[in-house]
């Protein structure tokens, strides 16, 4: 058959010699490569005792932010949802009532806020779209889970701890980020 390109290499189908048939030399060659790796630097770390450093711009699990008084910043404007290329965010808005000013920063808030983490591609476009600094991607990743339903993150799963009630956890969740103005 005429070859289509000049890069064709014909396969050598000669029968193996006796030395080749006992494989000893080939095994020794392979072992040499294995032994060489004992003296190389390890690419893995001993998780969970040891944890890998994330880059400061790592995009991990989403956090719904609060302001310094502990009020939710999200106004359910829907821009994160519309920016999301995986269409993984959905929310329902509600009007803040009088007496709820300590809970929500502005006159609207998200009554329901859900992210489908199985669909999320962690691109960070939601963070970029947010006009209220209400959602950001933190420096930790989504933990594994046994059921798929557990990957639908609700508002409770996403909200940052209250800075007044739990300042330690709040600071931890905020990470390297500057406190929002």
């Amino acid at each position: 058959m005429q070859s289509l390109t000049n890069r064709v290499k014909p396969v050598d189908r000669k029968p193996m010699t006796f030395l080749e048939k006992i494989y000893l030399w080939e095994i020794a060659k392979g072992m040499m490569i294995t032994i060489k790796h004992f003296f190389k630097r390890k690419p893995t770390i001993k998780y969970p005792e040891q944890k890998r450093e994330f880059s400061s711009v790592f995009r991990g699990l989403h956090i719904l932010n609060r302001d310094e008084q502990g009020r939710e910043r999200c106004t359910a404007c829907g821009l994160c949802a519309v920016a999301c290329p995986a269409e993984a965010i959905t929310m329902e808005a509600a009007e803040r009532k009088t007496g709820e000013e300590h809970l929500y920063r502005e006159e609207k808030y998200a009554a329901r806020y859900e992210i489908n983490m199985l669909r999320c591609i962690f691109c960070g476009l939601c963070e970029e779209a947010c006009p209220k600094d209400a959602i950001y991607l933190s420096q930790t990743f989504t933990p594994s889970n046994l059921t798929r339903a557990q990957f639908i993150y609700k508002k409770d799963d996403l909200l940052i701890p209250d800075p007044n009630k739990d300042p330690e956890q709040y600071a931890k969740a905020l990470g390297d980020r500057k406190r929002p103005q």
Partner: protein
Amino acid sequence: MFIHIDNKTYTVKAGKNLLEACLTLDLDLPYFCWHPAMGSVGACRQCAVKVYKDENDMKGRLVMSCMETVTEGLRLSIEDKTAKAFREQVIEWLMTNHPHDCPVCDEGGACHLQDMTVMTGHDYRRYNYKKRTYTNQYLGPLINHEMNRCIQCYRCVRYYRDYAGGDDLNVFAAHNHVYFGREKDGVLQSPFSGNLSEVCPTGVFTDKTLKEHYTRKWDLTMAPSVCNHCSVGCNTIAAERYGQLRCMLNRYNGDVNGYFLCDRGRFGYEFVNSENRIKQALIRSRTNEAATESEIMEHVQSLISMSKVVGIGSPRASLESNFALMQLVGKENFYQGISEDEAHLNRLVVEMLRSGCVHSVSLKEIEQADAVLIIGEDIWNTAPMMALAVRQAVVKTAASQASQEIKIPVWLDSAIKELAQEEKGFLATLTIATSPIDDIATHSWHAAPDDLARLGFAIASYLQPGKIVNTDFSEALLDKAKKIGDALKKAKNPVVITGTSCYNDNVIKAAFDVAVALNTGERKTSFSCVMTECNSMGLAMMGSPSFSVANENIKTNGHATAVILENDVYKHIPSANADEFFNSCDHVIVLDALHNATTEKAQVLLPAATFADGDGTLVNNEGRAQRFFQVIPNTTSQVQESWRWLKKLQTLKLHTLNGHALHPDDLLREMETALPQFEGITNVSPKHDFTIHGEKIPREPHRYSGRTAILANKNVSEPKPFNDGDSPLSFTMEGYKGTPPSGVVPFFWSPGWNSVQSVNKYQEETNGALRGGNPGLQLFKNKSDARDLFFNDVPESFVVAKDRWLLLPKYDALGSGELSSYTAALKTLSPQPFASMSTGSLQALNAKDGDMLQIVDAGIMYGSLPVKADENVCDGVVLVTAGLRESMGMSWGTRVQIKK
């Protein structure tokens, strides 16, 4: 006419202004104060363009395009640097005090101000000072007020005061403190206030009912729909998310509602989400009432094969559903679910319109009429949008006369208003009681129906002497008739409007006679008759006998199973008669969407779809068949269109199951064959398999968000998008992206135009028909060779009886409506049931204002009602609120006794 825009030559229509011309040519030019329905005032300075003297003029001058008429060979530039800079500066200055609160604003994503800001290129804020702030007002349960967002375009007051005739919204203060609102907090009085949310280019006035379940426009699944709450049939857009109907928007139809809706239509949608919805098929005789579809089918099948079956149709169910019931029970066993009195009137109206001797008028044509005569119908309360159209006719007649006198274009709004002042076109309202529309009437007269009819016949006889045989009219009546007749004679396009709410056939006959007498060679006269429900006309055209006949038949023959289609019989028929009917039926099968008095009588209950979860066709009072489309995907509940239930039963009965899906198109085709009066009805909308380049038309905008998350809380594995297959519309965001055929436009959107103002891009010309013609199919044709139908039944004048009162309904613009009253906001604005009588009648009864009265008719006792004294109700008549949530069927138009 040719004009040159940016060195390109275009053909435009003469008489338009430059802004309209540019928008018609699909060019983007920003504007605020101009509105296609309200004309130009040149207030916002946003639509500036450069106009050049001739091709050698390099300098040009800035003009406001909305204030300049197109002239032959005109040269203008939109793209000119100075013009662009001017527009950008204007918007920057408009935005100085705007709060930039788009994330919490309901208008965001459908905001004309956002669109125009982006269009002009103003993207950076330089104003660093304190913004002025206002206190907002409470404007009632329908409209939300947020004055800080205002950009002072004045559209709201121009709409509310000048267009809709309201007087409780105004503009206050001056300079940088202009305030649009009421004198003090309070409910907006106009029943057209909902349009403020679409008229306002930003978020000052927004839909308050939407706030309860707010969704951005881009997140809504939308489908073209038709309003269900009166017989006018305004076109609407129904919008859904999370399986709930979220809001209703106006769908422009140049022949019907144009840019506006009444509040009953806009806000009366909440019954779809009601707790009271029937979602589960029930068999009442069993311990476990809930039944699966196959169980219920089998059960109903055995019931209807056992005995004679009687089908009761409905004036609020679609044509398809009524026809499917007619097919199931047989033509001879199908009855209209309304009283004989109403059915008789409806038959009369059908006969009149079918004769083709006068034109059946559309709302748009009413707007263009130069004289209007209303006999016997309080259209403000029974067909609000028609009242708005009549108002335009009255105001515009004066305006167009003024504009012809000194040759200024009609769109030059403030100049025309200045010229016309209080001058108004001719309107005569001859009704039973006062109505807000009387304020703009030249003549208004309130009398008993028979007297109104006599005046009508007197006018007809004055217009064409000798035609009416019996002419024993009094001098006073003849004098009135002469005045009105003379004014009508002067008109070129007079319109005569009447209605069935008087329950008096002579009124309708008299109105028709006036229309026929006027319809001579030199003028084109049109006629319109308001009916009670959204498909009253469709049902009447089917020509079946009334409920009363069904009742008689069952009483004499006995043993029958009744199938009742989407009809609360107790709302149409006095309860004693309805009870009698249900007692003589062996079995009662009811299909309905909401629990009501009739469904309580049902042994078998089938959950029917509303306009939002089903497809169907309605015929409005004009005879215009209009298709509405499903918008709520139905994947779990048993709810389906009544016609689908009935058709399934029929196939089961006839063993004709062939495995094919059933579409409304198939039903309409069968209907065309069976009932020739519906000829052409299959063309009412594109067929279910219609596609453009193989693509369906998406119900969702291309920015629809959260597809993979929206149902994830219910089912993580994403289900296939719902597909009903009944229409050329799909339940996804994929599909044909251009302008769809006019009847299946699910929403108005165009690149750069996210707000409702994008309707410009769907019209052939601004304010004109939608591209490809306005949707809807007129079933009544004008016949040039029609023999004039003329009635000669002049009634005796009304005589006040000593102890009998004529019982007539009194409707309310917001409160009346079997379904719309489920909206909590409308319910709060609805009056409590009451009766009203003249002081003379009250004296005769020895009662006073506020007393509780009991109405008794032929032994039937109705509940007692508080009575109000009303000077304008004539003696011998009692008006009782009708159509309210609490209202039940009464023997309207009969003489009843009243007990204290």
